[in-house]
């Protein structure tokens, strides 16, 4: 049975959702460290006025790659690591609906990320900002390969996300254990479902935007060039139609993790489960109607401004509802301040600050003062670092024992949390003032007369504190391999199905598929008996063998992109041929799922 085998081959051909989850985790974590290093170089450059550490060109590449890496190569795949590892366990399934497609998603992500970062080898890393506004990205203003790497890399990564999106929607809808009704699903799984719907609807739009940009740059069209009848504002619209759902793609999984951690460490069911679920669905849906609040400075006119301001303010309601529900969950609970809980509580506090500064962007007159300043940088870091990253760290401490069989050290976790918490507030809170005082974002240096030198230094110190905290976490992970306490099946007393099986789970997850009779199966006394724990296996569970074809099919995409970068048509065609062969062999190989 190859699923329990070891060795390189077994990892390259694996279709086990748990292994793919681990691959996602480690790959994304490395990218997370790379993106963090880029941030530290940025902060070092900005520590004092008239910094000379890097050139303006290098600075452009650094902030572009910092954001692109963090959004597409670190945070999204880190959430995907948990989707992969945890969702099938939470719904009582033996794997995802399409295991080979799952492997394909991972390989496409990995190769797309490597392709994007290969640009550094050519000294041509993307430098147009993560939202790559036209016409900065036009051939005229960006004649190098930088933008080509960016637009091809993002298209590859989009395919990974889309394939995973279809897979997880079907998995969650169709592979639930008997009795696990939709309104009994763990909130994390619910938020994953909403996230996947956002992915499969939002990513086609960015794909079209990127394809049009590709035609402009490769074939001389004028989609975003006024000289040829095009309009650069179209790029902004298409980008933000994708971009706003994208920020919910980043935050909803973290909200789901927090909604798991808080009840477990308060020994209380989540307050208002139904409302939390529907708020999440509503946030996802409303996320589609707010995109132009990123574009108030374009001058869209009073009707459009009013509409998008109103929808943006409305989104604060379901978000606020969730926050009150989380706080109410804590009320009267037996709270244990484990590291996972600290990060979850930190998430709530930091996300409130980020949410409030977000509401302040919703008013167009205020937004005009804030656009393109460090105020916006402060906002996104409170929601994406204080929010998403804190939620992910909470998830890592929470599920680490399930994924590895050993507990992360709590004392180191305590240091990790407090240094991160203090570091992030030092790093990002001053940015509110730096921005309101007039320092634009994405500028490689500033003069002393702006009066923001001290605050920038404080911000840089905070950033390095976060860096130290990250090192502590890396040490904690490394140390845990041998010295971590053995976790057992359920170290936290969790309520959901993943805690009913061994840590790490066997290849087939469940010896007997459980029958679920309540929302918190492990907490209701009647249910405990129904979940067979380590029951003797009635019949050997068949685990599908691995497959090479997902990896081979995935490899065709960077080959095509390389051909495009080098303007080598035969290479592109070779990529197409590999893709076709890969798909055929995949479709007709004997594989039992």
């Amino acid at each position, binding site marked *: 049975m190859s699923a329990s085998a070891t060795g390189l081959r077994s990892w390259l051909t694996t279709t086990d959702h748990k292994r793919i989850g681990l691959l996602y985790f480690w790959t994304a974590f490395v990218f997370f460290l790379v993106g963090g290093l880029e941030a530290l170089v940025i902060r070092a450059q900005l520590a004092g006025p008239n910094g000379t550490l890097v050139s303006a060109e290098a600075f452009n590449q650094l902030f572009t790659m910092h954001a692109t890496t963090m959004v597409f190569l670190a945070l999204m795949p880190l959430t995907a690591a948990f989707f992969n590892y945890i969702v099938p366990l939470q719904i009582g399934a033996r794997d995802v*609906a*399409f295991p080979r497609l799952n492997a394909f998603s991972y390989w496409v992500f990995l190769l797309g990320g490597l392709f994007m970062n290969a640009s550094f080898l050519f000294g041509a890393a993307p430098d147009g900002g993560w939202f790559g506004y036209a016409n900065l990205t036009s051939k005229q203003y960006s004649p190098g390969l930088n933008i080509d790497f960016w637009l091809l890399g993002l298209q590859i990564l989009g395919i990974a996300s*889309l394939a995973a*999106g*279809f*897979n997880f*929607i*079907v998995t969650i*809808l*169709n*592979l*639930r254990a008997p009795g*696990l009704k939709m309104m009994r699903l763990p909130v994390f799984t619910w938020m994953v479902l909403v996230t996947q719907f956002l992915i*499969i*609807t*939002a*990513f*086609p*739009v960015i*794909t*079209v*935007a990127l*394809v*049009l940009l590709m*035609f402009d740059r490769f*074939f*001389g*069209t*004028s*989609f975003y060039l006024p000289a*040829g*009848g*095009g*309009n650069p504002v*179209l790029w902004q619209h*298409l980008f933000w*139609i994708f971009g706003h759902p994208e920020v919910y793609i980043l935050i909803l999984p973290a909200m789901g993790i927090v909604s798991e951690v808080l009840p477990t460490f308060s020994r209380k069911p989540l307050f208002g489960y139904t409302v939390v679920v529907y708020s999440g669905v509503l946030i996802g849906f409303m996320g589609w109607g707010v995109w132009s609040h990123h574009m108030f400075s374009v001058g869209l006119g009073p009707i459009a401004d009013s509409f998008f301001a109103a929808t943006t303010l409305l989104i604060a309601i379901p978000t606020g509802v969730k926050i009150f529900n989380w706080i109410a969950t804590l009320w009267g609970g037996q709270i244990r301040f484990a590291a996972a809980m600290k990060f979850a509580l930190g998430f709530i506090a930091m996300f409130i600050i980020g949410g409030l500064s977000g509401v302040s962007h919703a008013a167009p007159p205020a937004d005009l003062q804030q656009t393109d300043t460090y105020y916006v940088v402060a906002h996104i870091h409170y929601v994406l670092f204080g929010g998403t990253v804190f939620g992910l760290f909470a998830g890592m401490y929470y599920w680490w024992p399930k994924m590895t069989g050993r507990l992360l050290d709590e004392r180191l976790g305590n240091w990790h949390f407090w240094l991160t918490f203090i570091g992030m507030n030092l790093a990002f809170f001053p940015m509110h003032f730096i921005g309101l005082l007039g320092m634009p974002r994405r500028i490689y240096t500033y003069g002393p007369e702006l009066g923001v030198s001290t605050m920038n230094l404080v911000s840089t110190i905070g950033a390095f504190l976060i860096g130290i905290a990250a090192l502590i976490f890396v040490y904690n992970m490394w140390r845990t391999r041998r010295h971590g306490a053995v976790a057992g099946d359920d170290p936290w007393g969790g309520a959901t199905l993943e805690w009913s099986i061994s840590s790490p789970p066997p290849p087939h997850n469940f010896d007997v598929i459980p029958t679920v009779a309540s929302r918190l199966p492990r907490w209701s006394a009647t249910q405990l008996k129904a979940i067979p724990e380590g029951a003797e296996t009635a019949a050997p569970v068949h685990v599908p063998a691995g497959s090479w074809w997902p990896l081979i099919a995935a490899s065709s995409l960077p080959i095509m992109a390389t051909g495009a970068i080098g303007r080598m048509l035969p290479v592109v065609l070779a990529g197409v041929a590999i893709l076709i062969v890969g798909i*055929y062999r995949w479709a007709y190989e004997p594989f039992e*799922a």
Partner: protein
Amino acid sequence: MTHATSLGLDSRKLAFWTFIGSECLLFGSLISTYLIYKGKSLVGPYPPEILDIPFTSFSTFDLLMSSLWMVLALAAVQRGDMKWAKVWLFGTALGGLIFLGGQVYEFSSFVHEGLTLQRNIFGATFFVLTGCHGAHVTVGVIWLLTLWVRALQGKLGPEHAMTVEITGLYWHFVDVVWIVIFTLVYLIQ
């Protein structure tokens, strides 16, 4: 693939419908781009000068008929009539090929009349939108021919009805997109 599922629906079919939902946004973005740039060309040729309605009406008719052959192929597979299934599958693919031939002819005659990707914004939006649709048709034709060859080899039977049904979903969706394009691009000029 006969495992029981929570919704009682086939997983592949469910996945395929989500894929089609996703495709709606893809074509929605492309069609929006076309409509936004309508009448924004700085130089000719402009749509009324160049679009050939009688010819495209024939292509539309052809794609419609191929959609009919597709459902007839599905009905034949479902009742186990592989003889007719082969006929209709090939007919469907042939309809797709004729459509593609028409598109090649249309594109080359447009280029001949001076409309290229680079010429004006109409050319850019037109070629990218209809080209993307054509790429979808191409994939569909390859898919259909694969099924047809499998049927000839005797490797496609009533037990593969779901595969044929999903192929059909793809093919009809491509047809539906053409219905929209035919109206928005060709008839409403």
